[in-house]
């Protein structure tokens, strides 16, 4: 949109604007103002503009990649003849009134001639000081575990192996033992198997058989396989949901039942099938009431 018409040949006529902060909102404001013909000073305290957005993966609400939105705007800001970037600078003082401000800016020493620099980045790569690896303070995840838990988890790790490829079997065993994956154990497993915590969480959230929340005493799994689906499993699920007042993946307030759905258990002849704690039950929607009562009764 920055064609010749919108460009202000003589910005002084329109006055000028100072935008403080070079994040996405600052950049967008600067671009809009500049397109409208104002001379814009964009002040940013970091050495470069962009703010937090480049660090994000996806953005609400469209789930688009953040850099895909931001990068063109960064380039446009840098090239816009009406925008003057003042980076690595702090605002010291504002004087005056609306329409007539005088702003004092403290520009920190960059020690690089900005008029000559073409942004190749070679100086950054070659700097020995900045690239010293910064080690975070070491925290032993062992300390966060109770003695019994430590023994249980150590036993599991010793059986499955103390290497990154044993991550899934270890998590499976932990999940079975504790009915979910407690946070402190995840951290310990991550430390012991030398897998980054981020990757451990990636695995723990990727596979549906893992749960980060404690599960109820009884696990009810409703088969949503195709054979069960055409035989009416959605209606069975609706009934169970209505009775327990929970959605799949949730646990009842009394901690008695957790409801989950599963994609085919291979007991298609019995469909619709509901599995309660590894016992298979053929259940139709009109029998759900009796069925749940029976389990409650057994519980006493």
């Amino acid at each position, binding site marked *: 949109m920055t064609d010749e018409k919108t460009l202000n040949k003589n910005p002084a006529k329109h006055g000028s604007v100072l935008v403080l902060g070079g994040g996405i909102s600052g950049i967008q404001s600067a671009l809009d103002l500049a397109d409208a013909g104002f001379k814009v000073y964009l002040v940013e305290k970091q050495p470069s503009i962009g703010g937090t957005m480049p660090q994000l993966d996806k953005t609400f609400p469209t789930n688009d990649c953040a850099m895909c939105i931001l990068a063109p705007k960064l380039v446009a800001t840098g090239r816009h003849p009406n925008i003057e970037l003042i980076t690595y600078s702090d605002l010291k003082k504002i004087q005056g009134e609306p329409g007539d401000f005088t702003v004092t800016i403290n520009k920190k020493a960059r020690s690089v001639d900005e008029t000559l620099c073409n942004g190749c980045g070679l100086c950054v790569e070659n700097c020995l000081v900045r690239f010293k690896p910064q080690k975070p303070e070491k925290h032993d995840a062992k300390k966060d575990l109770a003695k019994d838990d430590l023994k249980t988890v150590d036993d599991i790790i010793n059986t499955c192996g103390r290497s990154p490829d044993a991550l899934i079997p270890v998590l*499976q065993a932990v999940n079975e033992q504790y009915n979910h994956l407690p946070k402190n154990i995840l951290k310990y497993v991550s430390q012991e198997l030398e897998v980054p915590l981020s990757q451990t969480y990636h695995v723990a959230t990727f596979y*549906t*058989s893992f749960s980060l929340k404690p599960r109820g005493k009884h696990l009810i799994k409703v088969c949503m396989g*195709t054979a069960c689906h055409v*035989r009416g499993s959605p209606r069975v699920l609706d*009934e169970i949901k*209505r009775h327990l007042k929970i959605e799949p993946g949730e646990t009842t307030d009394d901690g008695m039942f957790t409801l989950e759905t599963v994609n*085919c258990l291979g007991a*298609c*002849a019995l469909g619709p099938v509901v599995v309660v704690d590894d016992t298979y039950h053929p259940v139709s929607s009109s029998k759900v009431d009796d069925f749940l009562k029976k389990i409650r009764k057994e519980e006493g």
Partner: protein
Amino acid sequence: MLRSIDDFDTLQKEIIRKRDPGRKLITICNGTGCNALKGKEITKLLTDELKKQGITDVTVLATGCHGFCEQGPIMVIRPSGIFYKGVKPDHVERIISETIQKGTVINELLYVDPRSGKPLVYEKDIPFYANQKRILFGYNEYIDPTSIEDYISIGGYKALAHVLREKIQPLKIIEIITASGLRGRGGAGFPTGKKWESAYTAKSKDSAKYVICNADEGDPGAYANRSLLEGNPHSVLEGMIIGAYAVGARHGYIYVRTEYPLAVKYFGIAVQRARETGLLGENILGSGFSFDVKIAQGGGAFVCGESTALMASIEGKPGEPRVKHIHTTTSGLWDRPTVLNNVETWANVPLIINNGVDWYRNIGTEGSKGTKIFSLVGKINNTGLVEVPMGITLRDVIFDIGGGIKQGKKFKAIQIGGPSGGCIPEEKIDLPIDYDSLTDAGAMMGSGGMIVMDENTCMVDVAKYFVNFLMNESCGKCTPCREGLVQMNGILTEITEGRGKKEHIDLLEELSEVVKTASLCQLGATAPNPILTTLRYFRDEYEAHITDKKCPAHVCKPLITFRVDPTKCTGCQLCAKRCPVKAVSGAPKQAHTIDQKMCIKCGICYDSCKFDALEVQ
């Protein structure tokens, strides 16, 4: 522990000599399906009852799945072959005292042929079995899956011993497999011999190569692999050992889904026994060839059935597929050449070695050789696993073996190949089943799930079901699959909830094309198949939803209403009692009515009515 091939021959002869072919056996199915109906309990009761009645010459054999799951728990008495279905714990005493002691047949336990209405005594006469060709699956009925002796007694590990005794060159084995025409049973149908050959020729940076058995049978409605692993795990293991010998692998993995606990257990026992016997591990039968297998369990992610995602999962990573410019046979697990085959493919290998290429090539069609196990499920009379030669027509499977549609309803379509497959309509019922004909019809072999649908199945709902399934199972790595499926699911929801617009159909087709072309792995590339085939064969149903706002099959809740037929209603009050929102009212012995404002369309009244008085519009 066997140290040489001669040791194995001696052991085999010894086992066969000890077995009396005429010994009295009660075989009872202990597969997952029959166990859910107390199969295990009955097995224990049988043993106790035999002891109680002082019978010592009869053995109780708890086997894997027999395949006829609809009639479970299933019992076959040998050598006579008397077949009992739906056995309950109460029947045990009578079975022993009448059938075993006196030889009298208990009529109420016999299978009644729905066509002739006659009870059938012997297993071999039952059409479900008589029309199959059970070269892989048939052994399940004769062996205890936890016993290696049972497997050896039916000729197990003979193929392995033959390969090692004759010192057959790896390339020669690959040649045999190629010549047999065996194609991957996982669904895509890649020639197995060709796969092995490329792994054989591929260079590994440290000479390590792997073989993997893919038992991540994620397709809903398919459970053939599970039953093979539960019923005859050694046959799969033997296939893997031969495959490893052929491609030069020392280590193997089997990746089983976590929803199959029994399969994991039985395969684990099989590996243990084989190791103890010297058929697995270091220096197998003194031949100098070493091979061992590890079991890896899945975590409930459908995408892990895809080869590269499966390998990532074994490596302890999230199961996300990668682009396959480089095939896994060149760089697979831990970046080494890897052969990955389906359970059923591996189980075919010993059969081909034992019986020869010509025998195998005689079964099936020109392009697809051998048999295939299908799980025949849905609205069919004989739900179960059927093994048929390639090239058999759908009609034979559905009506001869499957016994037709439940409650005499009209056949509408059959969905083949799981979520990535397609729906084949009634007019194509004479289609011969093989890899190529199914692909032409818009479906695919997949892992062999066949879901039969009758007039009460809504095809738009089915398409929505599969898209919803795949949307939840998409790993989220690539955009077309992640975003496209969400959009398609949204459109299908609009249609099934009565907000469909005419342009939706075109939009669905356009989106399908994009997802199909641009997705990274086969999950995305085949995801639109259910939509495309239902649009191809059942466009009128989509149109009925969109223009008339009606669901012809009476499935889509917002488009249906429940009514009581006053002429049929006896006023039994069962539906009124069961109705969760008290929308049904009426005095005893008088016709009831449904308050449409209160009705949540849960269908419980419809399910409960014993007089067929409820109708859906």
